[in-house]
């Protein structure tokens, strides 16, 4: 036979390796890559080529002949495709089957599907938002190139009864650090001087994010400079660097570089650099940087005045801890001699420390600023790491509550599916098949929930942003998002589905089909435990929310020692120039105002502060116990009346006493600190005069006579104690003007003020605030926290109740016949309702008992920050417990009543 001969011959006509390589490459190029078929086709073609070559053909001709028989590239691919299809068919069929059955089941029990999807999607949406939030919070300041080498100094100063933990450092610290320690590559200072009125030509605009800083700013912070030279930008006095945002605001469509802006109507500032506006996740958002070269205060070589935030860039490889340990030595060498000079000759470091005083500088890494720092002198409020954990925990709890709903409903309905499981097993299903079936169902459900959750999160984000003051958005353009979605669908689907699938697939077909299994409500231990868990968390959250709100209420309504209501504060009064007093007088003449005062020292935080050491006249200031570090406020005659403070002893300042220019009113805390020997009224207190260089001058002390004692009033957050305070009359008119008004119509008051302002200060922006609103912002972050937790706990309890609702309706359904028989035998509706809600009611009660101590612990932790706290009495727990119980009971009774009211004829007829 010629063919057999040919094959035999072909066996000797082996192709060379080069030929085979050529074929493999060529087939690869034509797209034949599938496992299991590629090698087979190669062998086939090789055999064919060998055959053709044995007939005397050249390799290349033989190869093309064989390819032709396949139908070239198209035919090859078609073959590959068919093979892959025939292989996939089997497992795909199974998947399709799982999918179809899952869909049918979900549709058939649409009520339970709805409860599950609703709970899961809300829970997931909350998780998703929190995830975005946490990602944002932990991304702060990560965009600076040298971020790991940037530190800032913290100052801890304890002196004269005051204890400061702050960022403010002496002006000289930055240069001293650079000079003394080679590991410091650069150091810059910041000096905040409030907001500025900025104008290009005529109209002023108020800008808040303005800061004075040193020339190395761009060296420390790698902020891209769009125009100008970063190195020399802030080297000269009267120069500024501005953000792109500001450049576009004042010079739209023009080149701002080299142009001039006028600050506060008097400082002509040349723009020497324009930098990219800082991203949201930075711990400061300065829009205008003013060169520190033009600030006299910055040139003072003193250690006893703290006003500058100081940032360092360390050299790579430098050890911050080690550097920090050398700071004590720096203080002893440089600061102490200066202090000795000011405080008296017999001052020594030992005495200073022995008296319990402290002057310590430490370093704080850039990465700690946003989440781990809240010191005096922060540029912007940060966020507390503890709250990040708390948020994550709450989000996870809500998700768990939703997952538990899923588990409970699946296992509770197991009786209904027991027959399905039995028959499937008899028909040859393995346990693994059943588990896969149930997992498919839960993953499918989760996937639907996730898509819904994404929608919910999208709708909720604007509200959340409003509450949290962030600008979060869903990153739809990032592939990571879709990966997370898929991972979450699988993860949560498994989490929710694994227990039911184990549980259901374990049924023994013989028992199930005989009807022995009424597992429905019996195997309730785990389910009960899960319900208790759900309600423990929900009730804890409710108690926590109530406690937070009670504390906030307490703060809002606490007697503050002054009257924060009905006071309007006109800011930037310096823009009035010489019209300041006429403005005040003319407004007063309108008769709409009760009182008016001019000063920047107001009893809300964020306004002017100044503290100095004072002592009782006749005592030795060199003895440290005699020194009292005290808030020294400069006010006017009408201040105390306008703010509504109470004079406890003595009298208010009065124009009838010319001697009041050297009088002082102190608060009760100051009275305690000074420990006067006789009657405090008429006693004198002393402090250092100021020398020609602005530093303290111990040879020319100034003294003031106490004329009144004011009742303590809270001028800082209620987290702090009222500290010693003294008020003297200001030598000049400065600061904002505050008016106390009678009218309930605030609009009218504002209009009155604005018209007069425009008349007397043309071209200047009119800015005002109400004192009580500003007071409110002191607690803004707590308010937001309270709201967010309120929402969270509501969601938690709603989801938990959804589950309870479904469970009750299921129980009622299961016990339909029992209820029917009971009714026929004369049971009342109320006894049946009681019967149905008793079981679950007990669980809620247990949950309450567990939740109470948990919540107590949490509240205690939160309240420890407050010096003034409300009593969280037993009543609050009772309220929360009763509320949770009532909500749960109402949820259950709806279904119970429905069941108890049903006609027994209907439920018994089928027997």
């Amino acid at each position, binding site marked *: 036979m010629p063919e*057999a001969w040919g094959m035999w011959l072909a066996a000797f006509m082996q192709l060379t390796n080069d030929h085979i390589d050529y074929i493999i490459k060529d087939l690869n190029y034509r797209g034949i890559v599938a496992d299991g078929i590629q090698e087979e*086709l190669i062998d086939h073609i090789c*055999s064919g080529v060998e055959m053709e070559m044995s007939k005397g053909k050249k390799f290349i001709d033989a190869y093309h002949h064989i390819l032709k028989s396949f139908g070239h590239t198209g035919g090859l691919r078609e073959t590959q495709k068919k093979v892959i299809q025939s292989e996939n068919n089997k497992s795909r069929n199974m998947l399709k089957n799982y999918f179809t059955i899952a869909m049918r089941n979900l549709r058939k029990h649409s009520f339970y599907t709805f409860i599950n999807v609703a709970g899961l999607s809300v829970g997931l949406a909350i998780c998703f938002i929190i995830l975005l939030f946490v990602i944002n919070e932990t991304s702060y300041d990560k965009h600076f190139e040298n971020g790991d080498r940037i530190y800032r100094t913290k100052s801890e100063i304890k002196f004269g009864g005051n204890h400061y933990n702050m960022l403010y450092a002496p002006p000289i610290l930055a240069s001293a650090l650079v000079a003394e320690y080679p590991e410091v590559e650069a150091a810059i200072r910041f000096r905040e001087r409030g907001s500025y009125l900025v104008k290009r030509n005529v109209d002023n605009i108020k800008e808040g994010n303005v800061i004075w800083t040193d020339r190395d700013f761009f060296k420390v912070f790698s902020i891209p400079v769009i125009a100008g030279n970063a190195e020399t930008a802030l080297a000269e006095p009267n120069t500024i660097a501005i953000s792109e945002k500001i450049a576009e605001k004042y010079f739209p469509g023009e080149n701002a570089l080299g142009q001039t802006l006028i600050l506060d109507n008097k400082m002509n500032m040349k723009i020497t650099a324009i930098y990219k506006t800082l991203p949201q996740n930075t711990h400061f958002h300065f829009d205008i940087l003013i060169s520190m070269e033009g600030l006299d205060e910055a040139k003072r070589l003193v250690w006893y005045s703290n006003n500058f935030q100081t940032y360092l860039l360390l050299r790579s490889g430098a050890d911050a801890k080690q550097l920090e340990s050398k700071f004590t030595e720096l203080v002893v060498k440089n600061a102490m001699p200066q202090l000795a000079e000011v405080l008296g000759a017999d001052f020594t470091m030992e005495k200073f420390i022995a008296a319990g005083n402290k002057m310590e500088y430490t370093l704080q890494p850039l990465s700690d600023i946003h989440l781990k720092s809240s010191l005096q002198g922060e540029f912007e409020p940060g966020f507390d790491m503890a709250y990040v954990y708390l948020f994550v925990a709450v989000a996870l709890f809500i998700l768990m509550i939703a997952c538990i709903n899923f588990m409970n409903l699946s296992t509770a309905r197991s009786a209904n599916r027991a027959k399905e499981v039995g028959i499937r097993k008899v028909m040859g299903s393995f346990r693994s098949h059943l588990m896969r079936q149930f997992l498919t169902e839960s993953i499918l459900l989760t996937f639907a929930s996730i898509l819904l959750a994404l929608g919910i999160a999208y709708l909720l984000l604007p509200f959340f942003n409003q509450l949290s003051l962030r600008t979060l958005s869903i990153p739809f353009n990032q592939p990571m998002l879709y990966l997370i979605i898929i991972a979450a669908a699988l993860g949560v689907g498994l989490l929710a589905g694994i227990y039911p699938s184990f549980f259901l697939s374990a049924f023994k077909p013989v028992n199930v089909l005989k009807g022995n299994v009424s597992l429905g409500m019996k195997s309730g231990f785990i389910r009960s435990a899960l319900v208790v868990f759900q309600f423990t968390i929900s009730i804890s959250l409710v108690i926590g929310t109530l406690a937070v709100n009670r504390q906030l209420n307490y703060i809002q309504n606490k007697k503050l020692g002054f009257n924060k209501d009905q006071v309007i504060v006109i800011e930037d009064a310096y823009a009035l120039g010489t019209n300041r007093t006429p403005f005040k007088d003319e407004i007063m003449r309108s008769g709409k105002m009760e009182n008016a005062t001019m000063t920047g020292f107001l009893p809300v935080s964020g306004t002017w502060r100044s503290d100095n050491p004072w002592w009782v006249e006749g005592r030795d200031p060199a003895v440290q116990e005699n020194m009292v570090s005290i808030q020294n406020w400069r006010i006017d005659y009408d201040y105390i009346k306008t703010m509504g403070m109470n004079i406890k002893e003595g009298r208010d300042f009065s124009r009838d006493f010319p001697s009041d220019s050297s009088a002082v009113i102190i608060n009760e805390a100051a009275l305690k600190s000074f420990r006067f020997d006789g009657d405090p009224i008429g006693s004198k207190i002393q402090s250092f005069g100021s020398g020609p260089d602005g530093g303290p001058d111990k040879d020319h002390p100034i003294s003031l006579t106490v004329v009144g004692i004011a009742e303590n009033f809270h001028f800082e957050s209620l987290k702090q104690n009222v500290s010693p305070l003294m008020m003297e009359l200001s030598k000049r008119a400065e600061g904002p003007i505050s008016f106390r008004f009678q009218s309930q119509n605030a609009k009218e008051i504002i209009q009155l003020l604005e018209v007069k302002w425009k008349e007397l200060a043309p071209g200047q922006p009119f800015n005002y605030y109400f004192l009580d609103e500003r007071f409110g912002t002191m607690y803004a972050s707590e308010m937001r926290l309270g709201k967010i937790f309120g929402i969270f706990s509501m969601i938690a309890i709603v989801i938990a109740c959804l589950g309870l609702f479904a469970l009750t309706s299921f129980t009622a359904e299961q016990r339909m016949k029992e209820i029917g028989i009971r009714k026929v035998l004369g049971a009342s509706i109320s006894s049946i309702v009681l019967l149905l809600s008793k079981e679950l009611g007990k669980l809620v009660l247990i949950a309450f008992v567990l939740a109470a101590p948990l919540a107590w612990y949490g509240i205690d932790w939160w309240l420890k920050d407050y010096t003034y706290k409300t009593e969280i009495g037993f009543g609050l727990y009772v309220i929360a417990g009763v509320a949770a119980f009532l909500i749960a009971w109402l949820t259950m009774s709806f279904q119970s009543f429905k069941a108890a009211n049903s006609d027994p004829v209907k439920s018994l007829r089928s027997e």
Partner: protein
Amino acid sequence: MHSPELLKGTLQTILLKVLKDNGRMYGYEITQRVKELSAERILLTEGALYPTLHKLEAEGMLKTEVVTIGKRVRKYYSLTAEGKSLVKERVNELIAFIKTMGNVLQVELN
């Protein structure tokens, strides 16, 4: 040469019978054997051969073993016990079909 349309329904039967008669075979060998037996009138196209082989394998009629020859990997097909019992059935079915066709077309078959 016979048209592939006519061959379509008979391909599985041909493969099963050839494998039964020859034992272990690889793809190219099968095409050559069929070509030889049919005196070059039946040319199995690869596009039909391999998907059918894989399908029969997935259904458990065929088993495979892989032998490496130098750079090449050769996959041998042979019948499983299940496949063997199927062959007779399929062949009888085809013979009956051919007879029926003869009656339908009113021609004498030898």
